[in-house]
């Protein structure tokens, strides 16, 4: 598929999101209503909160806009929109980084998927596998969610569809042992990329978090530098709890980047702005649908446009 189509696809999917926020904003600063009074800024803050940016970041952005409105004489909707856009991009831009297979990497390059329950780890693991096979890389999947019923079968179905081998044991097996197995056979078959799917867990569950650390320790016996990437999967519909999730997973297993799923709904995914501001982690991918092709590198411009419209 040509690049422009993909971009359009993302735009179309995010259109609904954009429309609602843009409509709200244009209501505030429509032609003729040039007065940017306190109530207008308060409403802007409310709109940002509704988009899940959170109280702290929203308040901060509104304060910045207020200052700039005074010093640079922002009077119209277009002007304000452009200042808002710049502010959001300034926060998000540092998080735009591609997840490239490092050519000089020790093989296999090990990518571990982590996250709370139901965010879409297994589906994202499959999409990532597809992403890397498209680059002619030899990919393998490790089914280390040995807890949820039929999680293994789910990944195996994906493996068959994508013609990617899946290393698995029976349900209830030790996840660390499966990971060890998977890395072992990935090494033996000189696989380029090994993607390990893990069971969803609540980040406050110290015991399950410890099991994740154990999995890392076990694979490090085979490769001291593994895992090379630990991707935290975050549901775009998540509210402020996403901050706690990233904080806890980062502290316990060292998250190296984020994948944001389900951005094709009406959830604005505004918590991404708060995440980018607080953690400065790369946002590698966004998921915009259920098919394997619905994984896109994060594009801050497109995201901001989807959030606040094209003006500015």
């Amino acid at each position: 598929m040509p690049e422009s189509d993909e971009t359009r696809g993302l735009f179309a999917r995010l259109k609904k999101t954009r429309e609602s926020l843009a409509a709200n904003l244009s209501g505030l600063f429509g032609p003729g209503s040039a007065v940017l009074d306190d109530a207008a800024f308060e409403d802007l803050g409310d709109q940002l909160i509704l988009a899940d940016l959170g109280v702290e970041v929203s308040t901060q952005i509104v304060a910045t806009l207020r200052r700039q409105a005074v010093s640079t004489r922002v009077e119209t909707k277009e002007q304000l929109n452009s200042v808002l856009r710049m502010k959001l991009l300034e926060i998000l831009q540092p998080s735009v980084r591609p997840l490239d297979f490092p050519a000089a990497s020790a093989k296999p390059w090990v990518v571990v998927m982590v996250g709370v329950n139901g965010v879409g780890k297994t589906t994202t693991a499959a999409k990532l596998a597809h992403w890397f096979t498209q680059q002619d890389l030899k990919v393998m999947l490790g089914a280390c969610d040995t807890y949820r019923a039929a999680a293994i079968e789910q990944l195996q179905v994906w493996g068959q569809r994508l013609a990617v081998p899946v290393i698995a044991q029976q349900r209830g097996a030790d996840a660390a042992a499966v990971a060890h197995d998977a890395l072992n056979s990935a090494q033996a078959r000189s696989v380029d990329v090994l993607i390990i799917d893990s069971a969803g867990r609540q980040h406050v569950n110290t015991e399950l978090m410890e099991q994740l650390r154990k999995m890392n320790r076990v694979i490090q016996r085979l490769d001291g530098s593994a895992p090379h990437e630990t991707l935290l999967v975050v549901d775009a519909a998540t509210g402020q709890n996403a901050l706690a999730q990233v904080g806890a997973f980062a502290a316990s297993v060292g998250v190296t980047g984020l994948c944001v799923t389900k951005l094709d709904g009406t959830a604005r995914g505004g918590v991404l702005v708060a995440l980018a501001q607080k953690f400065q982690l790369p946002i590698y991918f966004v998921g915009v649908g259920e098919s394997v092709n619905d994984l896109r590198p994060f594009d801050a411009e497109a995201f901001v446009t989807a959030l606040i419209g094209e003006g500015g």
Partner: protein
Amino acid sequence: MFSQLGDRLKETFRDLRGRGRLSEDNISQALREVRLALLEADVALPVVKSFLEGVQQRALGEKVLDSLTPGQAVVKVVHDELVELMGARNDALNLAVRPPAVVLMAGLQGAGKTTTAAKLALLLKDRENKNVLLSSVDVYRPAAMEQLRKLAEEVGVAYFGDGDDALAIARDAVAHATTHVMDVVIIDTAGRLHVDDEMMMEISRIYNEVSPVETLFVADSMSGQDAVNSARAFDQALELTGVVLTKTDGDARGGAALSIREVTGKPIKFLGTGENVEALEAFHPDRVASRILGMGDVLTLVEEVERKVDRKQAEQIAAKLKKGKGFDFEDFKNQLIQMEQMGGLAGMLDKLPGMTDLPDHVKNRVNDRETRRTIAIINSMTARERLFPALIKGSRRRRIAGGSGSQVQDVNRLLKQFTQMQKMMKKAKGKGGLAKMMGQMKGGTPGMPPFGR
């Protein structure tokens, strides 16, 4: 869940409670804090606004300002408004139709529909003696049907459903339940976005085909401001009868719980409280409001104790102690297992009044690893050793440590604590059993220092 929201509110109220006199300014200031706390908890903005209006009106009423403890009175107003927001009482499932009663599960992807369907089946089977059929019509997600089939087996109910025509499976499942004279059919549907018109049409058709008596919207407690939009859209498409809030064992502040009920007017009927198939609780708005405001939820705890504690076993132990016989490792193990079944120490702490005031670092150390480790050590003892712990000397200690994957020091510590416990049990002769043990918990349960070593 809810505890962090509670923390925020309590800070605000601590100040208010102590004041002998309140001005309108005091109240407005406190309400601004409440607004912040609610928004940080992801309560939907429109809901926050109407909630605060309600509180303000009632708080400024004369009764509050004139009462002897106006701060306390404001807290009461917030409590009452919270209860009202969440629905005044618990609404149970209404299954009073000619069987089979059909329950339809609906929601976004990853909300936890399949797990909840299985939990619900177990609850109906165990507590209401229903003959339940689980059926998945999720023909999209790979292995979704397999997941429910496995869970059905796990909770011990029948499963029906195969193929790629969701509507046909739903129809056949109900027919199957009718011919097999079953009480309830729970139909699990594929996760879908409320803006996906095609998929929403599909679930409407299923709804019309099977005429469910209960249509439950399964919602993730971690969701943000958008939760109300999806809930509203599902409600319009399906006429929901209730909501199940999942993943409440995390630290989400539960704003979605307060918003969904307000926006749809549909009661929250259950909370999913963990990964285990037993982790489903009836939702009691008044108790949750109390939990949010740090007043504890003792009622739920009492109910859990009543339901899960094996009365016979407890009485046996009590009788044994009365006769002056020793409390042995076998008894200890049984008590530990019962405690685990009640959601463990962490689950119980959450419901005790005042416990939410514990500092976080203390709370985080309360986990049930120690309990499980202790059970493992006891499992590695022979029957004779359990009856006569005095037998356990050097080489036996090493064997037990090896067998349970622990250190000799762990075994030593357990033996020492057990001896103390035996002494205590002798003193408490007659009153023994779990009640006594629970009473001791504040000072540290023997055998399992609750706050780590």
